């Protein structure tokens, strides 16, 4: 049944709290009801940062908000000194708000998401193929992917087919991918072939004997039908959420309060012949239960269960995972306090090592194509989109630059020779195309040529500009 119907179904049964929803999109819908009925809503998986708004005073979160994850992602991009990225995101509340949070975080560092590529909630393979093909012409080669968990790994399958999982490309994914892989492995080991070189974040949960015991217990409880699926970090958040709610209700009852509901009059004013509003009751002490929840503090299996002023659980760490031939390999951790570290936050705390943002490290990463050297992250031009160089068709001083026999394809001259020599010094291939400017009967206006560059009609390589200007200076000795 759709989300609102599901919410009504439980609210009819006089519940004092709702655990969930796990989808951020559903949360936006259901929260309006929860606000009116004063029932606390505690989600273990809805990560959309905008759910922390003051608009939703009854919403708590026992998982990390994506505001932390996007901070981690922005710092990862900064760590490798890339400046521009392409972001592929699902165009719903979760994806869009995650994208704008990343844009804000990158903006603080003067970086940007150069191209934002939204995907529909249910995308098909031809849409992805089209989108990825077009993105190859854009320039940046750093892709950040923020979509819903997808066991089919559609985006990466298509990227692999389009030869985009090769050197020069960088693929960064948020925790949708680690959740998906944790849930489908080890039965789908072959999936890792198409993911070589991807770097993915995962919410970190501390190791403990209780956690190990719960994992093995939960594996036995998984239904036979889905024996191929396994567990992910959200199982721990869900477990902790039930513990949180139970302890809070216990404290509520220990204070001598009783659980009572009353019908709210304004619902009766609505046309109730087809609406269930009239049957829904307000939990009288919802605000009190909410304040008890917010003051709870205990050590759960997913981490410390303690809330900050945003009604989010206090900041935890993320693991940085690299996918290579060996499988999923953790190369480090990220935390708000220390940035990137190789040792886990628990180890750092135990050894009382203080780590700051000044001495961040990560393990070696194997990038797509098998390289270990950090990819540049952009291409200035490729064969599909060569560099367009504006060339004035001069009638005087033609030794510097001219079109031989009036042919626009055959541009020669001192400037061209210099340009070719300069190209040899650049450590990568630069496909180019000369675009002639002028009618061939009189020297064209340089002002107009420069205007064309500004308007994007033609471009000039930055480090060849001095050469160009030198040519121009020699042509017009004043």
């Amino acid at each position, binding site marked *: *049944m*759709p*989300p*609102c*119907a*599901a*919410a*009504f*179904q*439980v609210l009819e*049964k*006089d*519940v*004092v*709290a*709702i*655990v*969930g*929803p*796990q*989808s951020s*999109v*559903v949360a936006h*819908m*259901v929260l309006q009801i929860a606000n009116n009925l004063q029932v606390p809503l505690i989600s273990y*998986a809805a990560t959309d940062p905008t759910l922390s708004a003051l608009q939703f005073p009854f919403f708590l979160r026992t998982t990390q908000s994506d505001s932390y994850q996007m901070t981690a992602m922005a710092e990862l991009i900064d760590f490798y000194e890339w400046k521009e990225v392409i972001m592929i995101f699902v165009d719903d509340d979760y994806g869009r708000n995650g994208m704008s949070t990343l844009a804000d975080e990158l903006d603080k560092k003067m970086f940007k998401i150069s191209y934002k590529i939204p995907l529909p*909630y249910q995308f098909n393979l031809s849409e992805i193929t089209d989108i990825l093909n077009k993105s190859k012409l854009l320039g940046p080669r750093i892709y950040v992917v923020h979509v819903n*968990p997808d066991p089919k790994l559609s985006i990466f399958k298509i990227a692999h087919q389009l030869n985009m999982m090769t050197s020069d490309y960088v693929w960064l994914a948020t925790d949708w991918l680690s959740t*998906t892989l944790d*849930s489908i492995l080890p039965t789908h080991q072959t999936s890792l072939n198409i993911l070589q070189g991807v770097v993915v974040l995962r919410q970190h949960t501390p190791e403990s004997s209780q956690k190990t015991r*719960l994992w093995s*217990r*939960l594996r036995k*409880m*998984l*239904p036979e039908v*889905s024996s191929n*699926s*396994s*567990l*992910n970090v*959200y*199982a721990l*958040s*869900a*477990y902790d*959420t*039930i*513990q949180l709610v*139970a*302890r809070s*209700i*216990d404290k509520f*009852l220990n204070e001598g309060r*009783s*659980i009572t509901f009353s019908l709210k009059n304004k619902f009766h004013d609505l046309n109730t012949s*087809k*609406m*269930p509003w009239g*049957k829904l009751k307000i939990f009288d002490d919802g605000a009190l239960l909410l304040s008890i929840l917010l003051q709870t503090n205990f050590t759960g299996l997913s981490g410390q269960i303690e809330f900050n002023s945003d009604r989010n659980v206090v900041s935890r760490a993320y693991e940085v995972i690299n996918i290579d031939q060996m499988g999923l390999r953790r190369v480090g951790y990220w935390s708000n306090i220390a940035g990137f570290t190789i040792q886990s936050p628990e180890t750092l705390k135990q050894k009382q090592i203080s780590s700051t943002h000044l001495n961040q490290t990560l393990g070696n990463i194997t990038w797509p194509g098998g390289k270990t050297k950090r990819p540049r992250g952009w291409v200035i031009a490729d064969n599909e989109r060569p560099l367009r160089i504006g060339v004035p068709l001069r009638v005087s001083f033609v030794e510097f630059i001219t079109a031989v026999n009036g042919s626009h394809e055959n541009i020669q001259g001192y400037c061209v020779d210099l340009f070719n020599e300069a190209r040899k010094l650049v450590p990568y291939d630069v496909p180019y195309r000369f675009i002639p400017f002028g009618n061939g009967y009189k020297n064209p206006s340089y002002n107009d040529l420069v205007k064309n560059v500004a308007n994007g009609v033609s471009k000039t390589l930055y480090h060849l500009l001095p050469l160009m200007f030198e040519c121009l200076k020699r042509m017009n000795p004043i």
Partner: protein
Amino acid sequence: MGNLLILTLISSIWAFLAGSACCQRPAVVNIGAVFTFDSVIGRAAKVAMEAAALDVNADPTILNGTKLNLIMADTHCNVLLGSIGGTSLYTYCIHNKFEILVTF
């Protein structure tokens, strides 16, 4: 005789108060769980929540004397339309810009 009467009165008041104090804790408390059962996260979360409810009810230090009743409802996020038929309760639901009429 008067002392005996007062003593009886006091002990019956005390017994009444003691009895009502113990009955203030409900026998059952309901919490709802609203999520998509058949999803990557839902499959793991469902068994975890069931285990947690069992642990809470088995733990004498949490909610002693009160049973935690976990009511789960499936949001079927991947299914746009609900089924028709069943009880006489109707609701309108706006999901992904479609207006859906559901009965349940």
